[in-house]
């Protein structure tokens, strides 16, 4: 792989690798997520958590010592990040209501970017985005990348509670809160679709490398879909 990387200790039984000089962050992020899935099958790793430009793993000190784990980690990372992105697993359409009640930060984004709210909604819906990785909370998906004019940094201080289904923006990413939780992303809308499917072997609607197209809906349609979902 062409990407440089840097490995640092993270916890007393784990490591973090940062990928440096990334040309295509979406591609790197998806590769990291796919690598995490693969490493997770290896028993010496207790857990493997992909970031977008990083990946962290903790080893089981009962199964491998620090020095050997460090070598194994570097080897795996070195050979696993490829250049070619596999085609999307599937394509999904996700309805989003962008009205202020559901997307309280859209106005701010409009003021900061000088674009009308409608223009920003168009920008969020016209281009398909890809699920980079799952993380933060069960079923939460990082997707990207969004149009430059939509990019807005995280909030200075996170909200204590963000409703389930909220669609947020953080820099070049857009994400969907799968459940009510604290959160620091700028919220521009909300989907009525449940990202968590109860009692299934694969309980999440989204997974790395799924393609998503957002579709704007009004409140009436939002409520109708929500009712349908929860029937």
């Amino acid at each position, binding site marked *: 792989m062409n990407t440089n990387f840097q490995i*640092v*200790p*993270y*916890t*007393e*039984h784990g490591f*973090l690798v940062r990928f440096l000089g990334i040309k295509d*962050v979406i591609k790197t*992020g998806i590769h990291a*997520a796919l690598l*995490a899935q693969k490493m*997770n099958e290896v028993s010496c*790793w*207790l*857990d*493997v*958590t*992909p*970031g*977008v*430009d*990083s990946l*962290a793993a*903790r080893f*089981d*000190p009962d199964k491998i010592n*620090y020095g050997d784990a460090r070598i194994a980690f570097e080897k795996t990372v070195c050979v696993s990040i490829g250049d070619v992105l596999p085609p999307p697993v599937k394509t999904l359409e996700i309805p989003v209501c962008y009205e202020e009640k559901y997307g309280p930060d859209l106005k701010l984004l409009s003021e900061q970017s000088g674009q009308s709210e409608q223009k920003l909604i168009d920008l969020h819906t016209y281009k398909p985005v890809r699920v980079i*990785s*799952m*993380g*933060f*909370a*069960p*079923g*939460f998906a*990082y997707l990207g990348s969004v149009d430059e004019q939509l990019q807005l*940094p*995280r909030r*200075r*201080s*996170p909200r*204590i509670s963000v409703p*389930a*289904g909220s669609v947020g923006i*953080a*820099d070049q*990413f857009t994400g969907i809160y799968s*459940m*009510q*939780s*604290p959160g620091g992303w700028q919220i521009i809308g909300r989907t009525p679709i*449940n*990202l*968590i499917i*109860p*009692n*299934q*072997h694969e*309980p*999440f609607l989204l997974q790395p490398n799924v393609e998503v197209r957002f579709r704007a809906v009004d409140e009436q349609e939002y409520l109708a879909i929500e009712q349908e979902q929860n029937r």
Partner: protein
Amino acid sequence: MRDFVPSKAILKVLSPGLQTSLQGSHRAGLRHQGFPSGGPADHLSAAIANSLLGNEIGATVLECSMSGPTLQAMGDIRAVLSGASVDVSVDGIPIALDEPFTIKKDGILKIGACETGLRVYLAIEGGFVAPLLKRAQVMPITDRRNFHQQILQNGDLLMQGDLPGAETLVALDNNSISSLRPSYSHDWLLRALPGPECPPLGEDFRSLIQSASFDVQSDSNRMGVRLMPYSLQDNFDKVSDLAFSGAVYPGTLQWPVGGTPILLGCDGQTTGGYPRILQVLTVDLPLIGQLRPKDRVWFQIVDNQEAQEILRIRTLMVQSALPNFTFC
């Protein structure tokens, strides 16, 4: 709870307490899907409670936070409580922590308000049975709006399991328990490693962090503990938000620029974008579950090699009493 088969019910909730929930052993290997570790916030106390009854150390327990529940037995039952100091009674007679006791059918177990420490664990012989999500043990996904909210309610019936006991029942006495677990107070020293975004660890930064104290804020929960720095200027000039979100763990101290530091707990998110300044040692993670609002926290920074040694030695020591226990 609401789905339980009544015929197996063993305890009825007369008053649910402030935030009481069933907690099984933590989930491993699902962080890449966004699943937090979960499990008892102080899994060492939960393991001690189970062990005192001869249960597997990871058997499902009832976690009582701050102010405990009142429960009525629906049959004779052996139980034990371990964790935060709290007044407990059965039919009005006081019960000591860390000592198994019996509740007769129709007897009433009253768990009061925790005085030092935040959480106390009720284990019963055979363990509780909690609804299972196939791949995630005890975080039941019932509705996207109350994912974390499996909090006991009035009238809930708790089910008793029929789990095999631990292979070796190790006798725990009060001396060995106090050597496994520090006594709780309102002041806590947590040992920590520098996190990935920790500023260069010169003497300045080290003494700055180590001399500061932090007040536990009331808007804290199993996901995270908000810590208000006391007598510390927020001068992390070199630290900025991460360009992209990255892995965080229980024990990660995230410090948003200009914001309040958050020490992540057992239900904390798996990735985040705020600078990761410190990482609490794995052996000190159970203490995070006992931090209560208004308690005061100090950090002591140790280096990685020392931390590995502490983990090795503490694990050996705890395993001499709780053979299958792991901090990781």
